[in-house]
């Protein structure tokens, strides 16, 4: 039988899925052990048990000064910024994507501009962002929006353009106005793509969030990571990294589930 036709059984598939995770964990444990046996107070690769103990402390013990559990405070602050940034981007991208895709005048005016805009590295413009939007929450949300909005617009307007011309002509012959075509023909086909595009842009969104929090903040997941880096508290950093990974993974999963539930007919193209 050809290799491409040989499929693993259920048990073997589960084993193969788990294998890389287990190998990375083992490699980490070995590396950590070698370093810790050379220097028991080594901070670079804390033992897995240390990370667990730190995680427990971070999740349950309130901060001495404020009495709040910083872990949840950081998580809430970051999630708020991230969801606002991604939400605003998704909303604006849907509207502008529809306009660019459907209206030739808007397309002539904006398509080129957005294409150029999406190539600007937003992190290089940080000083300008600070002076225009201040150092508060606004500039962090704006950085996320600037970071992912152009990509979303390009992706969504492209999707609208992919709608078969015949389908739009057919709607026109049935008497649909531009407005109705936008709402009843284009939008339903756009929404599954929106979820897909948002899923893809979550990675960059986290990146911009953490960058913004590293520069000026007093709470947030990225803030804490860059703060404790000052004394190489890798146990805290690794706990936060695992948490961020888990959050991002759950968000991705939730969006996939939403897409499957809300738009089951698109499953084949996802």
């Amino acid at each position, binding site marked *: 039988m050809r290799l491409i036709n040989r499929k693993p059984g259920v048990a073997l598939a589960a084993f193969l899925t788990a*294998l*890389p995770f287990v*190998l*990375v964990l*083992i*490699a*980490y444990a*070995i*590396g950590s052990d*070698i*370093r810790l046996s*050379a*220097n*028991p*107070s*080594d*901070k*670079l*690769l804390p033992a897995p048990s240390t990370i667990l103990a*730190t995680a427990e*402390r971070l999740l349950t013990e309130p901060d*001495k*000064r404020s009495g709040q559990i910083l872990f949840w405070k950081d998580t809430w602050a970051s999630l708020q910024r991230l969801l606002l940034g991604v939400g605003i981007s998704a909303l604006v991208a849907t509207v502008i994507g529809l306009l660019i895709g459907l209206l030739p005048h808007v397309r002539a005016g904006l398509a080129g501009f957005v294409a150029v805009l999406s190539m600007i590295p937003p992190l290089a413009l*940080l*000083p300008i962002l*600070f*002076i225009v939007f*201040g*150092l*508060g929450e606004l500039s962090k949300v704006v950085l996320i929006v600037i970071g992912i909005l152009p990509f979303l617009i390009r992706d969504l307007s492209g999707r609208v353009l992919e709608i078969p011309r015949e389908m739009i002509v057919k709607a026109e012959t049935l008497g649909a106005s531009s407005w109705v075509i936008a709402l009843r023909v284009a939008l339903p086909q756009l929404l599954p793509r929106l979820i897909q595009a948002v899923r893809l842009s979550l990675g960059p969104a986290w990146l911009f969030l953490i960058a913004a929090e*590293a*520069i*000026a*903040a*007093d709470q947030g997941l990225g*803030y804490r990571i*860059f*703060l404790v*880096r*000052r*004394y*190489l*508290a890798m146990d805290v950093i690794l706990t936060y990294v695992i948490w961020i990974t888990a959050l991002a993974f759950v968000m991705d999963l939730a969006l996939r589930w939403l897409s499957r539930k809300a738009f089951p007919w698109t499953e084949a193209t996802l």
Partner: protein
Amino acid sequence: MQKTTILSAAILAATMGAPAWAEQKTEFKLAWSIYVGWMPWGYLEDSGIMDKWADKYGIDVEIVQINDYIESINQYTAGAFDGVSATNMDTLSIPSGGGVDTTALIVGDYSNGNDAVILKGEGDLTSLAGKPVNLVELSVSHYLLARGLDSVGLSEADLDGVINTSDADMIAAYSTNDVQAVVTWNPLVSSILEIPGANKLFDSADIPGEIIDMMVVNTETLADNPDFGKAVAGAWYELMALMAAGDEGALTAMAEASGTDLAGYKAQLDSTEMFFDPAAAVAFTESAELPTTMVNVAEFLFDKGILGEGAPSADFVGVAYPDGSTTGDAGNVKFRYDTTYMKMAADGAL
């Protein structure tokens, strides 16, 4: 797939494995980052003075510039370098707090105005109450602010919080309306003070000798390789003599490397108490004030939770002084002030 995973796992384990602190060796690496008192390290490498002294002792010393100060200390702590330029405070918190026994080989200078608390508009230290302050949290700036507030009977709790702000963006941050006060270091201080309305409230000249800039090296490496200490001290004090004599070539090269001109660099040197003379560095390191400063610093670090969760008290890490006395836990000495090599330089024995 499996093979590559195993391979990458093996590579991961190998590269992140044991730190490379060998016993006797002939190749050494020092890391430094840009700061007025550390610019000589870059010049030592570029001018060949380091190579000359290393050759004299039959070893090889490479001096590498790292753009991010904290990253350079983290790299040293992880074992990638034999020594790093650092302040007394960051040495205590990162390598020493991390169990890496570290020795101050060269005490280069102390900040005498290079770090400052700056307020937008009129006022004094007491007017900071109720205001947010932007600074690099847990840095010497934070320490300076704590000392300043202490001097007028305030504490950090009286502020409207401190906001961690990257030093790279400090000047841009200062220009925004949100920011009312900042604490930072040179050359940022001089740039910010040029902005109309900037008002210097407190600077490191008010706490002389507390923010010390040094070259710290791994204690074991130094003990096993005295030639390493001799070569580095020899090269450093050859250049110090040139600087003290006002050697324009050397000073201009250092000024350009730090992104300013000769006049700008000299202005920064004015707010830095450089120990051009090794005897002065020895006298400073042996002074009775140093242990007091280190206890202050340790208490600040402990108060801010920087000594780590394993630290039961501010005395968790021991610091040893040239006369053999210690502060903190004498059974856990991880930070040593050693004047041996600076003395050799002072006696011309290198």
